[in-house]
């Protein structure tokens, strides 16, 4: 049996009831669901085909036929925003996966071992933090070539120290607890204790950090795509759409407005969701970044 010390004697129903009273959580949850739904729907239906160029319809303003207007190739912006959501979500989500998959075991290990191992890991962390993440992501994508996969790797690498740090700090707070001592007395190894007792107790922290990094990943992906280093055409991406919009701001401002709004709303939703989760599961925790 694992003990969840963060949420003493609270049933799932109790947490859910609390969740639905939390405005930030509900708003963030609904926005995130809508964006996810939009991305999923785009696989089976979009108002128009995003790969088909209709020059006759180019740079038309928003209308009933094209709610968000059309771009310089006559493509429907709403459809492109829908398909672009897939790319943004996929890149940011996998990058979070990399960060969690590598960073959490590292952080948990450092906390369990302490001493030199811990010190070494923290110094490597310092090293990675010394590189402005975006600059390094630009270098990585420029070296290995632009594309969605390299964007994922570039963003993912910088998620690793973040999760390592959060996992370590969380684990360090759990290790002195009595139930860990009990587990030790029962003869469990430190790896077992880390997996069975420490991880479940820092899951909340990781979940909150996960939503933050997810949101930051969406912003970073948009930045890379804007510089031409993310997903390549014809695959629409929000950042790329903004790049195309820039030189056409005077004639077609909607080309910039709608993809940008998509980014803002997605990131806002994820941040609210993270705030909400942190609030519900641990009211004392103050999100800082």
């Amino acid at each position: 049996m694992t003990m969840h010390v963060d949420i003493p004697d609270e049933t799932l129903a109790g947490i859910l009831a609390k969740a639905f009273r939390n405005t930030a959580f509900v708003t963030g949850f609904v926005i995130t669901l809508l964006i996810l739904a939009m991305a999923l729907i785009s696989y089976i239906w979009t108002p128009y085909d995003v790969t088909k160029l209709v020059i006759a319809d180019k740079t038309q303003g928003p209308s009933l036929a094209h709610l968000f207007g059309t771009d310089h190739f006559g493509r429907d912006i709403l459809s492109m925003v829908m398909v672009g959501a897939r790319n943004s979500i996929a890149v940011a989500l996998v990058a979070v996966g990399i960060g969690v998959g590598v960073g959490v075991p590292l952080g948990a290990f450092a906390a369990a071992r302490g001493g030199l191992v811990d010190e070494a890991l923290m110094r490597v962390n310092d090293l990675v933090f010394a590189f402005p993440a975006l600059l390094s992501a630009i270098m990585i994508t420029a070296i290995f070539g632009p594309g969605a996969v390299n964007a994922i790797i570039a963003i993912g690498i910088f998620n690793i120290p973040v999760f390592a740090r959060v996992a370590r700090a969380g684990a360090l707070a759990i290790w002195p607890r009595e139930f860990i001592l009990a587990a030790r007395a029962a003869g469990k190894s430190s790896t077992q204790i880390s997996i069975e007792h420490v991880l479940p107790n820092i899951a909340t922290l990781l979940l909150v950090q996960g939503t933050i990094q997810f949101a930051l990943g969406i912003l970073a992906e948009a930045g890379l795509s804007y510089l031409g280093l993310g997903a390549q055409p014809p695959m629409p991406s929000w950042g790329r759409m903004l790049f195309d919009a820039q030189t056409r701001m005077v004639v077609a401002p909607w080309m910039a407005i709608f993809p940008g709004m998509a980014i803002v709303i997605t990131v806002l939703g994820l941040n609210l969701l993270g705030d909400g989760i942190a609030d519900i599961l641990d009211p004392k925790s103050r999100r800082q970044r």
Partner: protein
Amino acid sequence: MTAYPLKRLVIAFATLVLASMVVFAVLEILPGDPARLMLGMNASADQVELLRTQMGLNAPLVLRYLHWAGGLLSLDFGRSYTYSVPVIDLVRERLAVSLPLALIALALSTIIAIPVGLYSASRRGRAGDTVAMGAAQLGVAVPNFWFALMLIYVFAVWLRLVPAGGFPGWGAGAWPALKSLLLPAVALALPQAAILARVTRSALIEVLNEDYIRTARAKGLPYRAVLWRHALRNAMIPVLTILGLQFAFLLAGTIIIENVFYLPGLGRLVFQAITQRDLIVVESVVMLLVAAVIAVNLLVDLSYAVVDPRLRTRS
């Protein structure tokens, strides 16, 4: 008393050395031969080989690293392949744009964020706080380059108050130059201000719950004095930490923002150098930025001791 600063200094230097090795190693594996790039596709293999030797590209790896690192220390960064001028000249010229830009942005961000954080914390839970933090929540979500595009649309295209991009150079006079840095600085600063305001608010709220705040109020100090003198000072540590981190964000942010506004700054230089495989420029500028980040974080670490006297005696 000197142990703490000394330890931080040693760690900072070690980080810098490690970082330089990483940068050097990463650029070693970058595909493309700079000698071939300089001479063009029609040059013979012998010519390329000769130039490689002249450029020192055939020396052993360790020697090349030491030579390069030694050069960095004496501010001799080598010559740019594509511009055929010493890198240090390029850097100096570009810093004249990027440094003022980053500083204006940092100043703007601080000037906006601290008062907003103070205001929100002292009106916690009331309408003003909700509005301010809602705005901050929105600000955090806005990508700075999109915000930049919107600023260009409103202030340059629509109102025609400022140029949409480009930089006249400081030779054209201080005002025209500053004017063209104004929108980029605002675009960089606002998302950062949103983060800083949130941190300031939560740090202040934590401090305002402390006993000594109640004591200060109880002894009759006006609220304003308590807020500024006692609370803000004690809330400075998280705020300073974020300010240090933001400096790195601002530096990286200049890469995108300078591209949006076609500003001839360091960020645009490094971006173009990467796409043109101008290794020496990339290495030098990246190292310069990394050194700046490490130096700022060191300063932040050391300033903790100034803000919080208890840390001065910590070993």
